């Protein structure tokens, strides 16, 4: 509810853009999974206008939503009707035993058949023209056969995905997308679509549930958002979001699924090589050398999955929702400038992930590969987001301006020893940290503390009221963190013990 109130009030006051970005990129506060991510993304992708006239947001967003639903229904109904027409077109031919005459056929028909109006409308199924019903049927069946197989083995542990209606909905979304854009189905697209569908459904169902027992003060608010995220519009909203995440006006994920020529340099291969070679070198030359020179690991071996699925198999669903908030915020800030997926924060996150598990990766080639194939659970993705944004926008001119880093104790908690069976291995790995690396780590922590202090020092008018209540607490916490950094740097011999 707080999310909806925040969006509503800031839209009413005509300052939605700033408020939305700050909220979406606030990794210091608790981030509930039910934060209406699908609504955020529709705003960030421009499917719902952000620069809306103050106070008119409900009206405009409702119109956009109805347009989306109408467009989807028209497109899907049209497709279903054409498929039915294909079925009926086949039946008369079989029944009559006629061979129709058309410009491609070498057959000639008797004059009596040529005069039959019905015969003239029936195509030769062996020689379908471009755009004919038979070509459409073949294309749809091909997409359905492969996508169905992948959807059948998508076993997310949610009741929603047990329903056959869900799989049919996803299949229809994928088929319509491929036909509209003339793309073949590629493995992985099914998971992107399923993730978007799940979040749309979760958000709409939550709103419907809240609307049954609303507090009086919130009734108008809830009614408004129920019309913007209607439960019967989940397919339409999912298609629209999916199309934009994949498409040129959005995240351009299609570049990592399709290439223009069969043997052309793949964009996904280029992105993988760049991540493991250039971006990782910026993060850590030692790890870069180990991965690329000593091990000779090919970036494509693990990055194809990381990047194509936007990390859906590396992190939990709620964590992925938070990461997509980051990706789409960057896309929003790029506006109409040239946005390049290969040079986006999506690839920079991969480099952060490599650095984050550096100790595991330095042990040996086989262990490194196993770690890359199965990335370890991360308690707080905020830490990775922080590393990524600092590397991406160190001067905070862009996305860094809106970002609030996670509270520091989380970072220390992430560094505490893992469960018993892994402690000895970690102790061994920690002992390998050189003094320079220890200093680099502490420097990273110092930089994030400074960033947080700068944010407090020059808050926006919106942030002022939110931060005032926490200033004293933040101040005390910052002092504690600075003391820890001091201890690590002053007692360097103890640093190994500390991390072990």
């Amino acid at each position, binding site marked *: 509810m707080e999310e909806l109130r925040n969006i509503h009030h800031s839209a009413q006051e005509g300052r939605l853009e700033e408020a939305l970005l700050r909220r979406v990129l606030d990794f210091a506060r608790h981030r509930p999974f039910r934060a209406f991510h699908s609504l955020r993304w529709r705003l960030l992708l421009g499917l719902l206008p952000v620069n809306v006239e103050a106070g008119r947001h409900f009206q405009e967003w409702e119109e956009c939503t109805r347009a989306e639903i109408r467009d989807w229904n028209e497109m899907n109904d049209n497709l279903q009707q054409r498929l039915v027409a294909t079925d009926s077109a086949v039946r008369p031919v079989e029944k009559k035993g006629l061979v129709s005459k058309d410009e491609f056929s070498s057959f000639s028909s008797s004059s009596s058949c040529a005069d039959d109006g019905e015969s003239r409308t029936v195509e030769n199924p062996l020689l379908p023209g471009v755009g004919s019903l038979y070509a459409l049927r073949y294309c749809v069946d091909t997409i359905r056969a492969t996508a169905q197989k992948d959807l059948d083995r998508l076993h997310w542990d949610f009741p929603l995905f047990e329903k056959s209606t869900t799989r049919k909905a996803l299949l229809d979304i994928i088929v319509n997308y491929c036909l509209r854009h003339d793309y073949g189905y590629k*493995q992985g697209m099914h998971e992107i679509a399923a993730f978007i569908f799940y979040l749309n459904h979760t958000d709409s169902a939550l709103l419907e549930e809240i609307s049954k027992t609303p507090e009086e003060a919130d009734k108008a608010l809830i009614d408004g958002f129920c019309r913007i995220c209607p439960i019967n519009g989940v397919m339409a909203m999912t298609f629209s979001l999916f199309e934009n995440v994949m498409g040129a006006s959005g995240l351009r994920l299609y570049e990592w699924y399709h290439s223009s020529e069969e043997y052309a340099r793949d964009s996904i291969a280029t992105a993988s090589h760049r991540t493991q070679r250039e971006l990782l070198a910026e993060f850590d030359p030692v790890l870069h050398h180990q991965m690329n020179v000593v091990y000779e690991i090919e970036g*494509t071996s693990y990055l194809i999955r990381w990047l194509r699925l936007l990390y859906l198999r590396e992190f939990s669903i709620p964590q992925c929702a938070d990461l997509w908030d980051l990706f789409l915020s960057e896309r929003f800030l790029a506006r109409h400038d040239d946005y390049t997926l290969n040079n986006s924060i999506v690839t920079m996150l991969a480099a952060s992930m490599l650095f984050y598990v550096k100790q595991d990766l330095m042990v040996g080639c086989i262990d490194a590969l196993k770690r890359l194939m199965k990335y370890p659970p991360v308690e707080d993705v905020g830490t990775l987001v922080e590393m990524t944004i600092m590397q991406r926008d160190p001067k905070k001119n862009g996305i860094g301006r809106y970002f609030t880093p996670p509270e520091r104790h989380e970072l220390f908690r992430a560094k505490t020893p893992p469960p018993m069976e892994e402690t000895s291995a970690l102790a061994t790995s920690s002992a390998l940290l050189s003094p320079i690396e220890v200093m680099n780590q502490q420097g990273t922590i110092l930089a994030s503390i400074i960033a947080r202090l700068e944010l407090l020092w020059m808050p926006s008018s919106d942030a002022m009221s939110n931060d005032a209540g926490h200033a004293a607490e933040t101040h005390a916490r910052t002092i504690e963190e600075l003391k820890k950094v001091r201890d690590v740097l002053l007692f360097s011999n103890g640093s190994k013990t500390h991390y072990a």
Partner: protein
Amino acid sequence: MENTNLTFKVVIIGDSGVGKSNLMTRYTANEFSQDTPATIGVEFMTKSIKIEGRDAKVQIWDTAGQERFRAISRSIYHGAKGAMLVYDITNQTSFDSIPTWLQELRVFVPATCSIFLIGNKCDLEHLRVVKKEVADRFARENGLSFLETSALEKTNVEKAFEWLAKSVYDLVVAPVDAAGGRRPPLNAAANAKRPVNLGASNDGQAAGKKENTGRCC
């Protein structure tokens, strides 16, 4: 040299859905899952074995069945000493794709790579559409070894990988040892005897028949 640990790279390729991932997990971890998601990119697992009395480690790279003729294929095949071409005996299309997979494989791997043709899901005899004789003939004509497996029932999975490892050893490692550690000339390696299709020999048939009495294949 005699004490050096051996490491082989093996790739598993074939159409989507034929059971490549379950072949790998059955062999390396003795696990089969009906819930295996579609492979995106590659998956990687290792298995320690003994071959000719020596310790060896097999690196198994399981690929996505949809990726073909892409730049990414080059890196996946690089350094592979053995390959499994997998089709589903209940899916004619997956067998019809084998020539294309073989053609792609030949482009990226050396002539010394040992290639096995694997017909998976042989537990589904009642749904069979690819006759064993047809696949066997294709294998002989193309110099491949051939075996039918069931990852579900664990039929011939261990045998397939052991044969592949033995074949790799005989073709690549043993000649190096015999030459006193020096790498044999390329043309000599290329002319090395092609792997025998053990499934087709009389001895192999007898052994196979006896071993699989009452079971499929």
